[in-house]
């Protein structure tokens, strides 16, 4: 009797605990899967079957058809869908990977180095950016305006900027970075649109990727900062004593040990970029449209085309699920600890 409540090892629950765990996991799994099940059966319905009330089980309640799937994959919409699918497949992983690379290095730097940007220098910089914007709006070509403000910036930096000695720390830098995500996309989308219009980059992969990388960098940095700070510093000290350079330490010690965190973070950023809607709406017009736009477009004048939407949503999840299944095993009890004995 007692053994029912006793766990065999630290990480293995007792039999009763295991049953309770499965029960709770099962309930949540049901709550997750039921809406998805509804999505799947809706994708096999036609409009009258949706309109006439709830039908639950295919072949019993209603006769499933492949109409919506045909419409999306081989019919009228197939050209758009496949092109946008291809765009999403290019843009999302590339952005996620770049954000991960830059973000992880920056996170490492924020954990292990000490930076002291000076308030004076920052204020001078902001002033000069403001100045250049004013000059540009007055009608001066932007190349000249930028050159002038850069010159003024360096002059001021060497003179006035040095007088304000107050310094900020790493936490202030990190907070500045995360604060870049605070403005809602609705507010920043018009300036970004104008920016890329001036650079003649609208409707290109470059514009989308640049925007996605920058908008996701803060998240990568904040998540990776926590993972990296849990890596014992002694390992790096030992490597350093053995003569390894900073880059070597980062590449061969920090990165391998941070793999669980890297994988989890990559997954998020991939998901965020994969599903991003508003920025894509503005920055792409025809060539580089992504799939979320196709989904939103199914809310036509005749009302939402639920069956088409369901198909598109399902098509969109599949690749991410595949990647998640492949990567999931890396998010596992890390290399730091070694094998767990049962």
């Amino acid at each position, binding site marked *: 009797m007692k053994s029912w409540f006793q766990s065999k090892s630290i990480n293995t629950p007792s039999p009763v605990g295991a049953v309770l765990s499965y029960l709770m996991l099962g309930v949540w799994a049901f709550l997750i899967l039921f809406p998805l099940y509804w999505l799947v059966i809706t994708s096999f319905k036609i409009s009258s079957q949706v309109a006439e009330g709830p039908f639950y089980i295919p072949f019993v309640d209603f006769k499933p058809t492949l109409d919506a799937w045909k419409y999306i994959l081989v019919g009228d919409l197939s050209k758009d869908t496949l092109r946008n699918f291809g765009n999403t497949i290019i843009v999302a992983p590339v952005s996620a990977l770049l954000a991960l690379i830059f973000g992880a290095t920056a996170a490492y730097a924020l954990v292990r180095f000490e930076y002291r940007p000076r308030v004076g220098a920052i204020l001078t910089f*902001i002033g000069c950016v403001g100045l250049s914007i004013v000059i540009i709006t007055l009608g001066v070509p932007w190349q000249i305006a930028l050159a002038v403000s850069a010159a003024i910036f360096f002059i001021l930096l060497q003179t006035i900027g040095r007088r304000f000695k107050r310094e900020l720390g790493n936490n202030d830098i990190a907070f500045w970075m995360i604060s870049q995500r605070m403005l809602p996309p609705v507010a920043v989308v018009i300036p970004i649109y104008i920016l890329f219009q001036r650079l003649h980059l609208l409707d290109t992969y470059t514009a989308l990727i640049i925007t996605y990388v920058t908008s996701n960098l803060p998240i990568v940095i904040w998540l990776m900062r926590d993972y990296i700070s849990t890596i014992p510093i002694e390992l790096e000290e030992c490597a350093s004593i053995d003569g390894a350079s900073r880059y070597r330490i980062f590449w061969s010690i920090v990165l391998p040990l941070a793999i669980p965190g890297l994988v989890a973070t990559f997954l998020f950023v991939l998901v965020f970029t994969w599903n991003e809607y508003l920025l894509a709406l503005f920055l792409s017009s025809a060539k580089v449209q992504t799939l979320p736009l196709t989904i939103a477009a199914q809310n036509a004048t005749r009302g939402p085309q639920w069956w088409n939407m369901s198909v598109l949503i399902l098509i969109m999840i599949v690749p991410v699920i595949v990647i998640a299944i492949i990567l999931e095993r890396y998010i596992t009890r890390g290399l730091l600890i070694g094998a767990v004995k049962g």
Partner: protein
Amino acid sequence: MNILPQGPTRIGLGLEPTSYQIMNTEPEESQPSRFNGAISTLIDRLAGSVFIMPTVLALLFLSIFPLIGSLYVSLAKFDIAKGGYKLTFVGLGNYKKLFVGSEGDHFLGKFAPSTPLTWVVFGLVVIALAVFLARYLLSVKVSTGGLIGRVLLTLGSGMLTWMLVHTLWNGGRLGTASVTLVYVFVGIFFQYTLGLSLAMLTVQNLPGRRFFRVIFLLPMMITPVGVAYMFRMLTDTSKGPFTPIWESLGLINFSWVNNAWGARTAILIGDIWQWTPFMFIVLVAALESQPIEPIEAATVDGANSWQIFRYITWPAILPVTMTLMLIRLIEAFKIVDLPNVMTNGGPGTATQSLTYHAYINWRALNIGGSAAVAYMLLFLVTFFAMIFVNLIRQRTVETL
């Protein structure tokens, strides 16, 4: 102590690291002298800058301009003119409209007259804030920055309380600002508790846990627009899957869309469904990378599972928890797809969030008003993020 000379050699923005000592939470233990023979080459000296500069430049490139640009737009009136658009500077006009003008009801809510109850609640909060300030003033380490921060916090919380007590009951109506706060705090609370419980369950050595993990990740992978449409299907009282339940409750003709709190609850359920996986997966990774030895030692010493959680696991996942909360805090303030698709912001304006408010203004070509709402949102997020980072995060992480 430092390997690089400080001061005169510094150039540029000051983003070069001034000291190469590896940072450590306990300064007395960090002995950079161990590094003596290590860092010699110039390229290695630049490592600190090389690591962080790409990020800083990228953020500067794509953040300063939109930030200043939309600030200017929020101070202007946008008109379609011949061959494009025209911006007329109107000063704080757009903001004034939000607080005392035509959009006041929409943004702040409809204020009900004060009653004894509102005075009691408001009074209690004011007393609590006064105690908080007094305790800080009587403490040993009072600094100007800390004092200013706390005074701002007190004023801000006081005003928010005043707004909430007058709009929550007695026929008051919540404005978009309060609705957003409801979404953010209720949503984060449930997402975190659910995410943590599920993460604790799936790090146990159970057969099939990897299956559950992948299942639990699914909601996050659906595009937010898709989730919103899916929940609109599910919550439909006459064609959705729960129709028999509504019927048996006699609610078939009662549309939750007509009930303000019903509609908000539906949106919150959608939000919790979608974002619990985010909390879940980060917490799983955090729990997995936690060293096993302290737990083994504690078990040998006879600690029970609550004690192990409270004194070993919780401190270990606290930093990640704080980061998660901050990220979700910032992201949750931007909720827009669910209210837009599920309820169109209705009934009335009951489910509109601030971003949705900005979006409506923007759709009506009131670009200036839209940017002003967005900036108010920025102030709100900054306010809560500052409180979070400066008071809660530092305190909890530092006291470990």
